[in-house]
C-alpha cells in the first residue's frame, strides 16, 4: 500500500466521521442506583430509557450504567459519560445530587437531569414525581383493610421524599380508621433484598398485616406472601407477579413521557433548566390496578380519591393538620405548599417514633 492510498483512506475516514457527526445522533446517558433487574425503581427508569430508544429510533443513542454507588463513584461515572459525548444525562437517585452538580459545572455544554433532588444549575434540571399522591391512595386502602390496626412501613433513608410518603399514607389511613398505628423501620438501603425481607418479617411478627415499602426490591412482597394474611403494595413498579394477594395495588413510576419530552427539547435546542414535579394528573405517577382482594366499596372510594387528586380538586395534605409535637401545621382547608413538601422533615400528629437525623 502506498503512502498515497493510506492518506486517501484516512481522508475518506475523516470525511465519513464528520458525515456521521453532521447526522448527529443525540446521546442520552442514564445512571441507576440499583440493577435494572431490581423489579422496582431502576427497572422503571430503564423502561423509560427503552421507550426513548423506541420513540426516536436511530436519532438517539442511549447508554446506561447500573448499580452506581451514591457518592464519588457517581462523579467518576458521570464524568466518563460526559467525556464520551453524552448530550443529556439523567441521574436517577437522590444521592447523586452533589455529584451531578459538580460534574454539571465541569461540562457546561452537557445537559443534566437529576431525579428527586432540589439543586439546579443552568444545565441541570430536576424532576420528580409526586409519589405522596399515590401514598394517599395506599393509606386509604391500608386503613380499611387492616385488622390488627398495625401498618408496617419499610423506609429507606430519612429524606423528605420518604417522610412525605409516610405522612401521606398515615393521614389517609387515619382518616378512614382512627385506631390505625404505623410502625416504621429504616432499612438504610434502597436495595438489599435480604434486609428488606428481614424488615418485612420483623414488622409482620410485630403484628402488622399491611406492609408499605419505600425500598426497591420485591423481597417484602415475597415475605408477606410467605406469612399469609398480609397485604402489600407494589413500589415504583407494578410488581404484578404478586397480585392479587399480597399485592393489592401499586404506585407505578411512569418516566417515559418526561424522558421523551426532554430528549426532544435537546434535539430541538429548546432545553432549559426546569423543575418538574408531576403527579397522578399528568400521568407521571400511576396507581396500579386495585386487585379483587380489596372489597368493592373500598376499591370504589380509593379510585374516587385517586381521581380527585388527579383532577386537582383534592390535595393530599389539606388542613387541619398538626405536626407530631402538636403544633399547628396547616389550618382548616389550607393546603401544603411545594416548598414545605420538598423539604419535609417532620412527622404529622399521631405518628410515633423519631425521624433519624
Amino acid at each position, binding site marked *: 500500500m502506498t503512502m498515497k492510498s493510506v492518506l486517501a483512506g484516512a481522508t475518506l475516514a475523516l470525511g465519513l466521521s464528520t458525515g456521521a457527526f453532521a447526522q448527529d445522533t443525540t446521546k442520552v446517558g442514564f445512571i441507576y442506583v440499583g440493577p435494572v433487574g431490581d423489579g422496582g425503581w431502576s427497572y422503571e427508569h430503564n423502561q423509560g430509557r427503552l421507550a426513548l430508544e423506541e420513540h426516536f429510533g436511530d436519532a438517539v443513542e442511549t447508554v446506561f450504567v447500573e448499580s452506581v454507588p451514591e457518592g464519588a463513584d457517581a462523579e467518576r461515572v458521570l464524568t466518563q459519560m460526559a467525556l464520551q459525548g453524552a448530550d443529556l444525562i439523567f441521574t436517577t437517585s437522590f444521592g447523586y445530587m452533589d455529584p451531578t452538580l459538580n460534574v454539571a459545572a465541569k461540562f457546561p455544554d452537557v445537559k443534566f437531569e437529576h431525579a428527586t433532588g432540589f439543586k439546579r444549575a443552568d444545565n441541570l434540571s430536576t424532576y420528580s414525581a409526586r409519589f405522596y399522591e399515590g401514598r394517599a391512595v395506599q393509606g386509604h386502602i391500608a386503613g380499611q383493610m387492616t385488622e390488627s390496626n398495625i401498618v408496617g412501613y419499610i423506609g429507606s433513608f430519612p429524606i423528605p421524599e420518604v417522610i412525605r410518603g409516610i405522612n401521606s399514607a398515615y393521614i389517609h389511613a387515619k382518616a378512614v380508621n382512627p385506631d390505625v398505628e404505623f410502625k416504621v423501620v429504616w432499612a*438504610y438501603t434502597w436495595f438489599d433484598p435480604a434486609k428488606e425481607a428481614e424488615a418485612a*418479617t420483623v414488622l409482620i411478627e410485630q403484628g402488622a398485616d399491611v406492609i408499605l415499602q419505600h425500598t426497591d426490591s420485591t423481597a417484602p412482597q415475597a415475605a408477606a406472601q410467605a406469612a399469609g394474611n398480609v397485604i402489600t403494595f407494589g413500589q415504583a413498579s407494578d410488581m404484578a407477579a404478586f397480585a392479587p394477594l399480597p399485592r393489592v395495588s401499586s404506585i407505578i413510576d411512569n418516566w417515559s413521557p418526561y424522558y421523551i419530552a426532554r430528549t426532544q427539547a435537546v434535539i430541538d435546542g429548546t432545553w432549559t433548566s426546569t423543575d418538574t414535579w408531576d403527579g397522578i394528573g399528568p400521568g407521571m405517577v400511576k396507581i396500579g390496578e386495585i386487585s379483587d382482594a380489596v372489597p368493592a366499596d373500598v376499591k370504589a372510594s380509593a379510585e374516587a380519591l385517586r381521581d380527585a387528586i388527579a383532577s386537582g380538586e383534592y390535595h393530599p395534605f389539606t388542613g387541619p393538620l398538626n405536626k407530631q409535637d402538636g403544633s399547628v401545621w396547616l389550618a382548616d382547608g389550607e393546603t401544603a405548599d411545594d416548598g414545605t413538601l420538598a423539604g419535609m422533615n417532620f412527622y404529622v400528629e399521631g405518628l410515633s417514633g423519631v425521624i433519624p437525623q
Partner: protein
Amino acid sequence: MDLSSINPVLLFASLMVAATPILLAAIGELAVERAGVLNLGVEGMMITGAVCGFIVAVNTGSPWLGFVGAAVGGAMLALLFGLLTQVLLSNQVATGLALTLFGLGLSALMGQGYIGIKAPGFPDWHIPLLGDIPVIGPIVFQHDPMVYMGLALVGAVWAFLKYSRTGLILRAVGENHEAAHALGYHVIRVRVLAIMFGGACAGLGGAYLSLVRVPQWTEGMTAGAGWIALAIVVFASWKPARLLLGAYLFGGVTVLQLNLQAAGLAIPVEYLSMSPYLATIAVLVIMRAGRAPGSLGQSFHASR
C-alpha cells in the same frame, strides 16, 4: 416504646434463619483458609450459587435440586480460582477480588431471564414431637431443612478437622506447606479440593437467599453477605464453634435491631444499624483472636 410487642420466641427463630446464609458461606471459607488459601471471592461464589440454584430450582421445580445446582455452580467458580492460584500461581488476594467481580457479573448475565419469577416453595420442617415443645419447639425445631444442614455442616467440619486423618493433612498443608510436601502430601490437590468445598458451601449460602430467605432472584442480592462471612472466619480465629457463635450473634443482632426499631426504641437508628457489626467484632475480639494458619495466602510450588 413498646418492647412487649417483641416476641422473643419469634426473635430467636428469625435469628437462626437470618444467620444461615452467612454460616454456610463462612464454614466453607474456614476450611479453605485452614488449608492455607485465602479466597476473597466468597461474595462472587455466593451470588453465582444463588443464581445457579434459582435457575435449577425453577426449571426442575425442586428446591433440593436447586441447592445441588448451587453447590455445583459455586464449586465450579471456585475451581477457576483454584486453577489460577494453585496451578498458575496468581496472587490469591487479587484473584479473589476479581472472582467476586466476575461472579457478580456472571450471575447478572445468567439471571437475565429469571427476574420476577417465583421460586418453588421450600416448606419448613415441623419436626414431630420436638416441634411441639413449648418455647423451644418453635425456636429450634420448626425451620426449613437448610438451617439444620448448616448446623450439621459446622459440626462435620469441626469433627473432620479435629479427628480425621484427612483433616490433619489439610491442617498440615495450611500450617506449613513445605513440610507437608516433604512428607509426601499433595499440597495442590488438597488445596484445590478445599477450595471447591468452600465454593460449594458459599453456593449453598447464596441459594439459601434466593430460594428460601427472599425467595426470588434479583441482581446483586447477596449485598455484602460474603464479606461478612469472610470477616467472621477471621474473628472466629479459624475455629468452627466460634464461627457458629459469630454467625448467630451477627444474625441475632441484625434481627434484634429491626425489632427494636419497629418497637419504637428511642436509640438513633444509625447506632442500631451498625450494632450487628460492632457486637460481632467486639465479642469475637474479646474472646482473643487465635493465630492464622501459617501458610495462609502463600502460593506453593514444589520447586521452591
